[in-house]
């Protein structure tokens, strides 16, 4: 004890010499403050510059482009005359746009419902303790690790009407002629199913994380009160999981609505445009037709839809913070 008491003044006196310097020059605190602000900005600057360059610029550029007559020649001349609402009108008058919009809605809703319900069921299932729980859980993560295009190509083979594994398997039960990807009526449903398969791990992991936060005592108390498993799920799990559910659904929505790679790998938008979504339409307009103005229009519509849901997401997050 005595040693610490003795060392304290010694340390203080040792430090006193340099400390006297800033005390003597009174304007220093001001410059110090300026430096601190500068440092703070220095920390923020890379992020701001990055955001402006890689998010802000393309975003603004895309909006401007949708009002321009932007063709291959533009790349040489740099001239892209403004043509008002022409691109927008053209896109809205195209039958394909209405079709793609409707199919995007079906695709998004179908995928979300499927991914969420199965993901939640699995999360609840794995929330219990049982042997091999960890191993099984990591196996279910696999679809998440496989690149989208690879899944697409593999599933295209599996779903082939004549030589696909799925139909050969169903053939054992006498039902092996389903035109998974080769009929205009089935293709979208098949694409949705594949996307559900891809999305389950994400939903499961996040919801499982949420379930871990729910205090076990609540279930104990509820079962003492005689609540059934279903009642416990409805009155404890769901309400407490609500913030997590919002996050999962909003994030899922934003990644589903702009789907492109999976559809391209599975069906190329076909047969007969029956799996065209807004994402593939943007791609087709910009990179097949080289009509960059029209591509930008569809792209902007997608950004707008996502932006609306981003606001929901931010709100949900803010409420959670309270």
């Amino acid at each position: 004890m005595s040693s610490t008491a003795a060392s304290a003044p010694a340390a203080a006196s040792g430090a006193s010499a340099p400390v006297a310097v800033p005390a003597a020059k009174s304007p220093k605190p001001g410059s110090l403050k300026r430096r601190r602000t500068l440092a703070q900005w220095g920390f923020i600057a890379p992020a701001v510059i990055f955001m402006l360059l890689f998010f802000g610029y393309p975003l603004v550029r895309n909006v401007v482009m949708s009002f321009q007559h932007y063709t291959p020649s533009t790349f040489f001349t740099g001239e892209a005359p403004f043509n008002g609402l022409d691109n927008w009108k053209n896109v809205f008058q195209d039958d394909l746009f209405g079709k793609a919009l409707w199919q995007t809605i079906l695709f998004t809703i179908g995928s979300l419902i499927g991914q969420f319900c199965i993901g939640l069921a699995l999360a609840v299932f794995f929330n219990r303790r049982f042997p091999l729980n960890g191993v099984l859980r990591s196996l279910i993560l696999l679809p998440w690790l496989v690149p989208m295009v690879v899944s697409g190509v593999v599933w295209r083979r599996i779903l082939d009407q004549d030589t696909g594994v799925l139909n050969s398997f169903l053939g054992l039960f006498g039902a092996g002629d389903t035109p998974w990807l080769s009929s205009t009526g089935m293709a979208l449903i098949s694409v949705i199913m594949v996307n559900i398969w891809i999305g389950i791990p994400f939903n499961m992991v996040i919801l499982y994380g949420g379930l871990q936060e729910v205090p076990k005592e609540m279930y104990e108390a509820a079962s003492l009160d005689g609540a059934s498993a279903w009642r416990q799920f409805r009155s404890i799990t769901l309400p407490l999981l609500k913030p997590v559910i919002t996050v999962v659904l909003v994030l899922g929505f934003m990644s589903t609505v702009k789907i492109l790679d999976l559809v391209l790998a599975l069906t190329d938008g076909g047969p007969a445009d029956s799996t065209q979504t807004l994402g593939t339409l943007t791609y087709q307009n910009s990179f097949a037709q080289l009509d960059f103005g029209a591509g930008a229009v569809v792209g902007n519509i997608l950004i707008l839809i996502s932006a609306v849901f981003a606001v929901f997401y931010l709100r949900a997050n803010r409420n959670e913070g309270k």
Partner: protein
Amino acid sequence: MTAHITAGPRQRRRRLDRRVIVPLTVVSALVGAVALSGCGQQRDESVFTVLNSSTDDSYHGWDAATLKRCSKQLGVTIEQQSVPAAQVMTKSLRMASSKSLPDIIQFDGSEMPTFAETGGLLDLKKLGVSTADIPQGILDYGSYKGTYYGAARTVNTLALFYNKDILDKAGLPVPTTWAEMQATAKQLTKKGSYGIALSAGGAEDGVYQFTPFMWSNGGDETDLDSPKVVEALDYWKGLIKDGSLSKSTVNWTQADVNDQFMAGNAAMMINGPWQVETLNTKKNLHWGIAQIPVPKAGEDSVGPLGGGMLTIPDVGDTAREKTSAKIVNCMTSEQEEVTYALNSWMIPANEKAAAVWRKKVPSLSSLADQVATARSRTAQLGSGWTSVSLALQSAFQSALTGQSSESALHHAQQRVESGN
């Protein structure tokens, strides 16, 4: 005392400030610099670049060998830059906007007009690229609005590939007319194996495969709902109805078709010579090749002309462009064309080279015959081909999945006319 205590950390923070601000500024500057450095690259005087789609190992190697020989002959360094076929156009456009175009771009025949239309390509005749011994059809293939922009080294087209063993076993001759092909295909269709395979996928692959049926029947891309085109599409529908053509054809690319043929799931297929390299990897597969059957005996089998063509973009440096023309001349010389054709199983563009090639690979001479009557997809519509192609894809897919050929093609023609 309190001042003394707080002074320590504050001083440390001040030192930290300097230590932090400098790197942060540097990082910010770097991020900016990297982002901007994509624009405006300096050209190296003696290094010439060829942009092509030879991402495949073997093609990349063959091209590298050609370029090495030409480098030596011309005393310059020629490098190749390979990107996937679907990206040649977009990559070139991006390079154009940053003024860093390569010296030579190898475009697919269906894409060249679009790039030529921008005014970004140079007239090859003016630059001194030789056109001697090139048949008119191939000259047209490389031309847009009367100007010769693209020099083909080799060309290709589609043909009917057949499994010799299966046909021999059934005692059937190779079909030459639509009716014969339909009958043969029907006879060869068994459980798990189809008479014929072709690609009706929703991309240029499918359209490419439809053209020989449309054209041989007298149909035309400028009038998609004419009875001739409807008849051609009905012929495809008939094959599906018979069960000789798999319904999955609407999901197949040309490569998928080849896989089916190699796996023995199809007795015949419509495909191109670029599959030969893969076909030959399967030693116990005995295949033959013939012209695509025609509607009636004695008619011409009109296939599509395909293959890459070498173009010289406007890089704004006449001396460089002259050298590029010499490189093109070297790459399309008789010797190089024969070498490349023998490697890639395609047909030399130059007549003399084609004659040499025919002697070396007589088994493929029906391909050379098919090329003689083959048509360019863009000869009539130029850059307008893309929208026709998209409408046509959608139309034959609708028809093959149930709609009537007539209404599907009628809708396609309307779509082309409305400009959507």
